[in-house]
């Protein structure tokens, strides 16, 4: 058969099959274009079925960009303290690279923090995280994470997009591409930021080679919750409605004349935009939240002195708390993926002071979020993730011949992430690192394994959730790596 004949035979076959199902020829072009939603008159983000039964429905990904120190928060190392000030076994250093550390003179640095066991399982937390420690029985802590990147932007891309390269869709894009979203009046993938901008900036929530339908939409901490949400000044809601009625009528005329179903999709988008104009302000209006809740999250907290990196506009504490509360309101309303980004965990110096500031900001609201979700019965179906892009070195940072080591350098070999809810096992501490926290000792978990598992919690097979790009079927996990789903995390 010639290609033309093959093509015609195929379309004829499809035409007959779909016609039999009651779909007309006009819709067919969309089915063939892979756009079955448009064909069925559904918006592109309409909910879709996963590959298999899911455990989680929504995800709140708290991204601590800059790389928090696992050694001072989650992974106690008495041996490291013992070896404080000593040089490292040079064999371990062979072939390793650092951003700033000078290998020759670098010495180990113990944590000044006190660690204790919490919850029924006895999960370790340092004294910087008293509130989160109280949620230990809901938390799954993975201490044996590792990544391929040791600079921030590539590392952040890998954590969000699977590889340390540009032009790839982020986890939120893949989830909304795979599952759509429950609430058509709000974006399916929302980004909330507090403090200053991250290394990755907007590249962390772009949709890469997926259509921009699946890009993250940034909600703002202001009355104008979404970019361009408000009508132009002087245009009342009733004239917005009247205008859109006119637009719909004119577009419908054109649809009748041109017969292109894209015009129907256009009409639907404008109607969605209109509904968003009321749904988004309702979402960020916290006046209905009770005082107890506001206090639990700490939405009115003043930002203390210090934290020069994490202060942002000086409202970081209140903004971060508000973002956590907003995240709950979003998943409650069916937003699929909420990404809370806070970008000030890159502590090359004054580690202890900076960590005190940042954990002071985040500990209470993150714990409040987990408890709140639980109380509302949302935790079972909401996966909360707390992670940075890599970890920090057991070696103190001795850049530029500094006299005293007060910080730690980038460490891709071993770091810790936390999860709660969404079908993961509470109280599980998974994986270990060696006695100084240099590298995983048991059950190492590559970032891609974590991502494959995250998708599996949502009923998606990371090898089947693909999109054609640059000559191959791409996915969230690298196509050249064998990634594994870690079933041990499932509750």
């Amino acid at each position, binding site marked *: *058969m*010639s*290609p*033309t*004949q*093959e*093509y*015609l035979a195929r*379309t*004829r076959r499809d*035409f007959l099959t779909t016609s039999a199902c009651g779909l007309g*020829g006009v819709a*067919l*072009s969309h089915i*063939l274009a892979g756009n079955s939603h448009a064909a069925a008159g559904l918006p592109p983000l309409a909910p879709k079925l996963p590959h298999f039964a899911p455990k989680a429905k929504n995800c709140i990904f708290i991204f601590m960009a800059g790389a928090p120190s696992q050694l001072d928060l989650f992974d106690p190392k008495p041996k490291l303290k013992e070896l404080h000030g000593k040089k490292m076994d040079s064999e371990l250093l062979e072939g390793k690279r*650092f951003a*700033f550390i000078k290998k020759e003179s670098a010495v180990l640095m113990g944590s000044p923090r006190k660690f204790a066991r919490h919850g029924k399982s006895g999960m370790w937390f340092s004294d910087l995280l008293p509130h989160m420690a109280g949620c230990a029985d809901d938390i799954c802590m993975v201490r044996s994470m590792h990544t391929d990147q040791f*600079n921030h*932007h590539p590392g952040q891309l890998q954590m969000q997009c699977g590889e340390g390269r*540009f*032009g790839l869709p982020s986890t939120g894009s893949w989830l909304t591409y795979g599952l759509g979203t429950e609430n058509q009046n709000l*974006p399916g993938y929302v980004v909330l*930021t507090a403090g*200053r*901008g991250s*290394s*990755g*900036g*907007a*590249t962390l929530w*772009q949709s890469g080679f997926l259509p*921009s*339908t699946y890009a993250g939409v940034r909600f*703002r901490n202001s009355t104008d919750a*979404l*970019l*361009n*949400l408000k*009508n*132009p*000044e*002087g245009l009342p809601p009733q*004239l917005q409605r*009247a*205008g*859109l009625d*006119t*637009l719909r009528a*004119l577009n419908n005329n*054109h649809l009748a004349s041109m*017969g292109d179903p*894209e015009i129907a999709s256009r*009409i639907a*988008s*404008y109607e*969605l*935009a209109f509904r968003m104009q009321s749904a988004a302000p309702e979402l960020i209006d916290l006046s209905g939240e009770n005082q107890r809740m506001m206090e639990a999250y700490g939405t009115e907290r003043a930002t203390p002195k210090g934290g020069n990196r994490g202060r942002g506009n000086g409202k970081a504490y209140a903004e971060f708390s508000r973002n956590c509360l907003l995240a709950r309101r979003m998943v409650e309303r069916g937003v699929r993926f909420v990404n809370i980004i806070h970008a000030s965990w890159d502590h090359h110096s004054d580690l202890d002071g900076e960590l005190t500031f940042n954990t002071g900001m985040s500990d209470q609201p993150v714990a409040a979020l987990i408890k709140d979700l639980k109380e509302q019965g949302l935790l079972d179906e909401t996966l909360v993730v707390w992670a940075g892009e890599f970890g920090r070195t057991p070696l103190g940072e001795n850049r530029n011949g500094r006299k005293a080591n007060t910080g730690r350098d980038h460490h891709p070999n071993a770091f810790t992430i936390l999860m709660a809810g969404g079908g993961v096992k509470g109280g599980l501490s998974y994986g270990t690192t060696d006695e100084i926290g240099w590298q995983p000792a048991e059950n190492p978990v590559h970032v891609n394994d974590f991502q494959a598992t995250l998708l599996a919690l949502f009923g998606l097979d990371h090898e089947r959730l693909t999109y*054609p790009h640059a*000559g*191959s079927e791409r996915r969230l996990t690298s196509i050249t790596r064998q990634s594994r789903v870690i079933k041990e995390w499932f509750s």
Partner: protein
Amino acid sequence: MKILVVITLLTAGSFTASAAVDFINEVQPLLTAHCIKCHGGIRAKGGFSFARKESVFSPAKSGLHPIVSGKPEASELLARITSHDEDERMPPEEPLTSQQIETLRKWIEEGAIWPEHWAFQPPRNTAGATIDSLVKSSLGKAGLKRSPEAGRHTLIRRLYLDILGLPPSPAAITTFEKDTSPGAYQRLVDRTLGLPGFGERWARHWLDAARYADSDGYEKDNARLDAWRWRKWVIDAINDDMPFDQFTIEQLAGDLLPNVTPSQRLATAFHRQTLFNREGGVDPEEDRTKRTIDRTATTSSNWLALSMECAQCHDHPYDPVSQREFYQFYAFFNNAEEADAQVPKDTPGAVAGEEKEKAGMMKARVMRAKERKTFIFHRGDFLQPKKDAGEILPGTPAVLPELPVPAKGKSTRLDLARWIVDPGNPLTARVAVNDIWSRLFGHGLVENKADFGTRSAPPIQLELLDHLALELLKSEWSRKQLIRYILLSKTYRQSARHRHKATGIDPGNVLLHRQNRFRVEGEIMRDIFLETSGLLQHRVGSPSVFPPIPPDVAAQSYAGSFKWKTSTGADRYRRAMYTFFKRTAADPNLIAFDCPDANVTVAKRNRSNTPIMALATLGNEVFHEAAQAMAKKILSNSSLPDQAARIDYCFLLCTARKATPKEKSTVATLLEKSRAYYVKNPSEADKLAGNHRLKQIPAADNAAWIATARIILNLDETITRQ
């Protein structure tokens, strides 16, 4: 005669059970789906690969032949797929169906014909063919006919949007509609192709491929205040119709040309558009390697439509590009380094006064030669050069025509550039015409524009693609001539209206039974709003500008380090292609409409349709200001006697046609409702008009027209090219 026989056989064959098995349509998809994952580039298990023809006809590691032509019983492939032993049977997960097995058996029995990949063969000439004759013949096979020619207003708007990226003015529309003499359309085409907007529009396509931006990318994302200079070079080259071979040679290797001019040096800034990581603690050599890999991959993807980048770590899983061949290609760019050069500030005559006064030289980022040794990197890791594999010399993939042996020393980037545009290269001209076609029809003849590799089935319109490629060569690489040829075809001039019956037979419009409709690109959204409302400043070239963006967008860049100082005066209203493109905090008015993020080369943009876009065009400052200005423009036009004439004019500006009576009454109702509101709320009327209040008109009328103009600007027809 031979060709004719084959066609007859194929045609006859398709209706009988004994048809010969077709490798491309029947066998290759099976191998790709079930076998290549293990027996492919990444893991050539058993020592053979279904990605390479020569591999499957030679003994594998076991000594057995995967395929013996004509002998199914001697072919290990067949033995394995039919084995009942679970440990032996392939594929291990699930056996093939008996039908699939039969297909493979029959194919081997028939001689296992494995034709060379179409795209690696030279384009074939169809005698006496034209675009229209080829399209007519393929439509005829499907029992279809071309659509009638589109109406004049549609034609002129389509042409303007495709060629200039701007809507036609009412005057241009009227002139064209009144010109009933023969050749009116051809004259319009020629006039349009001569306008400077042509270079701007088509340069923007090229900037996508070049991953052009005004900043470094990565965390620091420092500004590149001289980047615009190369952008202007592209605009000029396209307006001057610089032949595509020269255009290629100057950008890839201008610095190596004899008697090199500053402009030729500037051209090499194509490969200075890579990202540059200035984050603390970055290994400079690692980042240089990354940029070199990007140059390698971008060159092969953009000119040859081969995705080579995966071969940096391992042999290509599907295409015949080995890891060694990747590093041979890489070696051309490894023998180059980044440098600064002095170039003229701008070509004289092309810009307004201020530039001329400051005439002189400026710095530009360019490339220059620098000899380095290249080694294969184990798994693509620059810290693991495979020294034992020896130095890798610059070279091109063996599957493509041979690179001439250099007279002395190693082959250079100049040799590579000349090889790319050698008429004997089967890919370059095809890739170039496919790109041009896609800009004029919304889809390439090869839909996946960046992949002409072995996974790309021959396009249904292969004859047309080849015809166009040969036309491009015949015109000595004149893109303007090829574009003109396409624009004048009946195929291009068809109506885009959907026809029910034809859609049933040819739903993807692959046979081109009509033109396509599609939303204009992000930049053109802005340009349409600004041009129709009279705000657009037509100045070609110049440094990048800073139209208003929401203040918290720039704050998203690293540590809020970037200050966006909004342009004032004319620079507030330039075409969107001149907007300063900050990689980590790009203008949301561009990004929301699928404008690429400039981090990697892009051959084909997405065309999504989201409520976020609707919110932008309804509420964003830039778009709303256009509505304000449009109301002012309509109301201050004294040649419009009444409301009906004003509505017509508004439609003409936005859609190139007048309103129908039904549309007029719909619009009049909105005008009335709005007027009634603003009569009661005069202060709201003033607010809505902002800085574009027309004093001699009652405030309520002014505001009512703004509330109406914004809706006509948002019509699907306004933002769609059809």
